[in-house]
């Protein structure tokens, strides 16, 4: 199992370590009795701030003459209109319009990019990238693809207290708009700090050199005493990351996204530019033709949010029913720590399960009553 540069940090904070896509990662820290555990970490992020190790995610640098052209082929989203210092959420599709991965593209300069990909998909995406590069319609594209996952680390600082804390030592970062980033020099350490996240809260994600992680963490957390019960920032694990993203209605690969799932069903149409080949500057991406066809008739299914009555949760694989008929399947679900009720996401037939509709969820052991609701389930209050 791979260890991230924050492994010692995890053990110092009593991380409950698990295997996640070949990485030894904290599911949560400590126990509920001593103020830790998944629910406490979740609420800590909603109310104040949490720090997540996301170093297991893949970081791939793409640079060179055809870097942009290559990324137009690879990504469902437009790249040409990205400014330097901008990041963008995009999908990577297969020829059938299924989802190979969801990624964040960072544009450092005209021909200089970084992609952040899911840990479980890193090897697959690296292979796919090489295949897309070498089989472009106009001939092989000239760009360098370098996997920097092992040379770097990545942490996410999320929650309402994060930006004010960073404001104490940086003016620039709090002024960054959402999905913008800055490259900062901290002593001898080069950091990429982006106003992004996967929790539904404000905050930043930081990419830094692996060998400098300890030093950078000391600097970032210089005013934070994590041993205190009311610490402004506490460590948060993958468990809380999952419940936070579910409340925020954000899709997760293997649940709402997958090779067999049509990209237009996933509720992320904003990330699919179906005019990309026609705007004169872009390129058709892999899966473009298939998705154009899907768009013409409309996708068969849509992603819906469910609020479930009672204390029982609906989990991935449970059946969604309406008027006694099967209309869909649950992809994610949990008791929501913030809302105190069970929430779920799932795919349902396009014409069914409209917002406000009553539906049922068959868990295999019982049938739960649910209501279709708009997502996100939880939205952070505007500051």
């Amino acid at each position, binding site marked *: 199992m791979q260890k991230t540069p924050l492994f010692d940090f995890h053990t110092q904070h009593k991380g409950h370590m698990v295997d996640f896509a070949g990485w030894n990662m904290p*599911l949560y820290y400590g*126990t*509920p009795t001593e103020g830790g555990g*998944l629910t406490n970490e979740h609420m800590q992020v909603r109310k104040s701030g949490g720090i997540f190790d996301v170093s297991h995610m893949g970081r791939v640098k793409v640079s060179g003459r055809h870097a942009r052209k290559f990324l137009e082929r690879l990504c469902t989203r437009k790249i040409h209109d990205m400014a330097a210092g901008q990041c963008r959420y995009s999908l990577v599709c297969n020829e059938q319009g299924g989802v190979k991965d969801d990624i964040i593209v960072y544009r450092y300069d005209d021909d200089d990019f970084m992609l952040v990909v899911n840990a479980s998909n890193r090897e697959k995406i690296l292979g796919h990238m090489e295949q897309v590069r070498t089989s472009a319609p106009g001939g092989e594209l000239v760009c360098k693809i370098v996997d920097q996952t092992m040379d770097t680390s990545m942490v996410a600082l999320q929650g309402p207290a994060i930006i004010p804390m960073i404001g104490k030592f940086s003016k620039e970062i709090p002024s960054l708009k959402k999905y913008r980033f800055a490259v900062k020099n901290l002593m001898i350490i080069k950091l990429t700090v982006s106003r992004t996240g996967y929790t539904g809260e404000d905050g930043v994600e930081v990419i830094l050199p692996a060998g400098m992680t300890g030093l950078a963490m000391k600097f970032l957390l210089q005013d934070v005493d994590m041993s205190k019960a009311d610490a402004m920032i506490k460590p948060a694990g993958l*468990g809380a990351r999952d419940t936070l993203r579910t409340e925020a209605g954000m899709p997760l690969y293997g649940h709402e996204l997958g090779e067999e799932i049509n990209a237009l069903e996933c509720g992320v149409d904003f990330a699919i530019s179906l005019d990309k080949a026609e705007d004169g500057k872009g390129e058709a991406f892999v899966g473009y033709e298939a998705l154009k066809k899907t768009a013409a008739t409309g996708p068969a299914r849509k992603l819906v949010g469910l609020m479930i009555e009672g204390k029982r949760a609906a*989990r991935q694989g449970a059946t969604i029913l309406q008027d006694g008929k099967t209309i869909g399947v649950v992809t994610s679900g949990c*008791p929501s720590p913030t809302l105190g009720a069970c929430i779920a996401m799932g795919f349902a037939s396009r014409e069914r399960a409209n917002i406000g509709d009553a539906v049922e969820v068959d868990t295999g052991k019982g049938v739960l009553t649910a209501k279709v609701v708009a997502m996100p389930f939880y939205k952070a209050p505007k500051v």
Partner: protein
Amino acid sequence: MATPPADRVYSQSHEWHKIEDDMVTLGLTQFAVDQLTDVTYAEMKKPGFAFKAGDIVGEVESVKTTSDIYCFVDGAIVETNKAVADDPSLLNSDPYGKGWLIKVKMSGKGKLGECVDAATYAKQHG
């Protein structure tokens, strides 16, 4: 992992069984509750429910997952832990004590032979 209490036996599905004559108290191990994460709900079968070894005797729901609870003896439930029904977090804070799940009147040893002692369990799930 700290060694679990020596006065009981442990199943591969992470239940502990404390046997006193023909009465068996059943609960989940520390290892199990650590895997589940914070328990939000526990629903056990009612007193009077008779079952064979290996049958499902209840379910616990945590933030992360839902898990069936098995009992490895034959018998019938005589009592469920009301404190856990009211406050499921007792399973996380004191799985070997206040977080017990059911008391069973044993009618046969069933699959008790498949269970292991505390030291063996600790070695397997250390």
